[in-house]
């Protein structure tokens, strides 16, 4: 058993932490989050330059090839800065799918473009009534001529409006909840009959609603084997959850630090708030939640490379547990800040919002508790 970071991981951590610290102060973050695109081309370019966009991939694409721990490290640093760059959508989800399923040509052209920061991807997977069920796909793919025609709606797609290419999941066969029968297709942002409607997210990220009203794509747009893509979808979601777990930990760290600092500074009734035992203990509750969240993030990160049964139990444990702990930390951070924590102008409010909203991505606490119980039964 070994909890230490490798030399490469320590370097990665230093690099990304420095980048966030130096280029992503709160004011800038707010501007970026409020921008039309919802991220910064400039920061994205720096991430590319520093080799950050290839981290999860094989060495030939600039990656470290070491998996979950790297993602956790990246997530934690980005969580500390509330970074809204499209890393999850472009690199982890989009890049991850190409990495797992892409042909040599697709990897060559697309992965390199992703790693170089030239191409943005988004994974158009969720649908209006799929809630958190990853196998729920109603969007249809019909074979037409040499290609495919896609029809359906996609919902709450991370960075969907900024993407150059969408990876759209669509049903080839089977019932709308079946794991079998799902295909993945590359769709360029300018495709005919494609409508992408972007909105900001309540936490400063950006999402999109997407309508595919008979979008035609060629045979070269197919990713992997149509109908047999679910395992890859599950795997990139696992990766995304590891990164998100890291992000939650990073954001929780800042929320705890900021709150502790505030308690020491702010006075009421002639005493610093930190003198009130009840407030002390609440800060401790936040700190305890942070510690548990860290443990779960480490667990999920370290288990990402294990066989599915082991991996997914850790993934669901982490997502369910962190959902609860992040909410505790987010809500207490606001409460302990009092009125000031309710305002747009203070960073901690935005940390709290992100912490709560992380539970709405890739399955909430209830979803993963239920899933964990099923996986745990199967493992027993």
């Amino acid at each position, binding site marked *: 058993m070994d909890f230490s970071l490798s030399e490469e991981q320590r370097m990665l951590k230093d690099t990304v932490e420095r980048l966030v610290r130096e280029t992503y102060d709160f004011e800038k973050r707010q501007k970026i989050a409020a921008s039309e695109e919802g991220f910064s081309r400039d920061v994205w370019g720096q991430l590319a330059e520093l080799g950050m966009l290839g981290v999860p991939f094989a060495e030939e694409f600039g990656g470290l090839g070491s998996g979950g721990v790297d993602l956790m490290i990246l997530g934690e640093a980005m969580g500390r800065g509330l970074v809204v760059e499209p890393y999850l959508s472009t690199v982890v989800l989009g890049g991850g799918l190409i990495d797992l399923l892409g042909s040599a040509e697709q990897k060559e052209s697309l992965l390199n473009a992703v790693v170089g920061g030239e191409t943005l991807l988004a994974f158009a997977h969720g649908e209006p009534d799929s809630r958190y069920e990853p196998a729920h796909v109603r969007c249809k793919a019909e074979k037409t001529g040499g290609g495919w025609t896609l029809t359906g709606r996609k919902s709450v797609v991370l960075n969907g409006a900024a993407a150059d290419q969408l990876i759209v999941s669509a049903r080839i066969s089977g019932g709308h909840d079946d794991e079998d029968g799902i295909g993945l297709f590359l769709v360029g942002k300018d495709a005919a009959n494609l409508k992408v409607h972007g*909105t900001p997210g*309540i936490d400063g990220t950006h999402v999109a609603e997407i309508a595919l009203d008979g979008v035609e794509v060629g045979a070269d747009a197919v990713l992997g084997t149509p109908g047999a893509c679910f395992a890859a979808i599950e795997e990139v979601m696992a990766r995304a959850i590891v990164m998100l777990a890291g992000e939650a930990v990073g954001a929780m760290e800042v929320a705890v630090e900021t709150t502790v600092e505030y308690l020491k500074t702010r006075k009421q009734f002639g005493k610093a708030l930190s003198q009130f035992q009840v407030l002390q203990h609440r800060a401790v509750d936040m700190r305890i939640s942070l510690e548990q969240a860290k443990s779960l993030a480490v667990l999920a990160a370290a288990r990402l490379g294990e066989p599915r049964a082991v991996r997914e139990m850790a993934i669901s444990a982490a997502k369910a547990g962190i959902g609860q702990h992040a909410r505790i930390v987010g809500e207490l951070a606001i409460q302990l800040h009092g009125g000031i924590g309710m305002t747009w102008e203070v960073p901690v409010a935005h940390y709290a919002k992100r912490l709560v909203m992380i539970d709405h991505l890739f399955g909430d606490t209830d979803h993963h508790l239920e899933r964990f119980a099923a996986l745990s039964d199967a493992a027993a």
Partner: protein
Amino acid sequence: MDLNFTPEELAFREEVRTFLKSKLPDDIRAKIKGGKRLVKDDYFRWHKALSEQGWLGSNWPTEYGGPGWDPVRKHIFEEECYAYGAPRILPFGVNMVAPVIMKFGNQAQKDYYLPRILDLTDWWCQGYSEPGSGSDLASLRTSAVREGDHYIINGQKTWTTLGQHADMIFCLVRTNPDAAKPQEGISFILVDMNTPGVTVRPIILLEGEHEVNEVWFDNVKVPAENLVGEENKGWTYAKYLLTHERTGIANVGSSKAALLHLKAIARDQVKNGRPLIEDPLFRNRIAKVEIDLMAHEMTNLRVLAEVQSGGAPGLESSILKIRGTEIRQEITDLARRAIGPYAMPFQSEALDEGFNGEPVGPDYAAPIAQQYFNMRKLSIYGGSNEIQKNIIAKAGLGL
């Protein structure tokens, strides 16, 4: 013991329902039901309807134009208003400054201000909190210095709800900076918002809405006749006001309406192929908060009955504040969870009347996450829930 309404109370409920159906404008009701943004005119029209019915001063004695309702009737009125989809009655004039003027104001003040509150000539806001004094209100620093027949006010108030719409503000100000205790040098004064030197600056809350404000006073000259009661006795009046504010604090009506809305959402949302409301876990959470709300409503009614028979609520009003806000927050939390991924999109413009852009997700989704974050304020304002527990510990349990 009988928890059923009397025939008279049932008749009164019908009267309220009839009034709501005929006098609450449909567009306002639709906004409330849809979680849309209200503009000043919406509040105005609703208050006007109440005013014309003689029901605006629902807590007022008949001598000042109130309807003279007992607590049970007030409870029925509140509950029916929320159930039907009426906006809340803004308390600043009718339920905050008015009781203070009635109790401590002079005859001229009563004659002048009270009718203007009831007929909506004056729209009031509150000047209590300051940046440095939240829960510890008595540490306030806004100063009022007597110069001839005026006071000169300097300082800053904050968290002034809907101050952007107000004509008048009632303020706690420090008139004696040298008093032995911080509570002792405070006065209660009424200020016209149009006086030179008064500046209102918006505070945007974390969810993005402009609901509260900072109000700055820069050498604001206020006639001495605007002082309520005696100079330096304002703390007494402030505490009296806070007791009055507390009466509506149980949030029963609004929580009941929110619970119904939550159930409607849970019936529409689908999880594992079935309505979310049939999901055992979610169903259990709804049942739990529904029972909590039943218990809380009973507590509220027991306190009201106690008040009606001449008792004064003690630690109970703090319990009502705590439980009322916890339950209200729990309901918004469940609503947020209920809508799943659709909690994320932040369509601020969709909350405006006449929005005809492309809706994202089901029509009830847009305001839900905002409401959840906005409702975090409940456990902070009006004396934070921690402060309420201090009060119960000290005054209620003698700890």
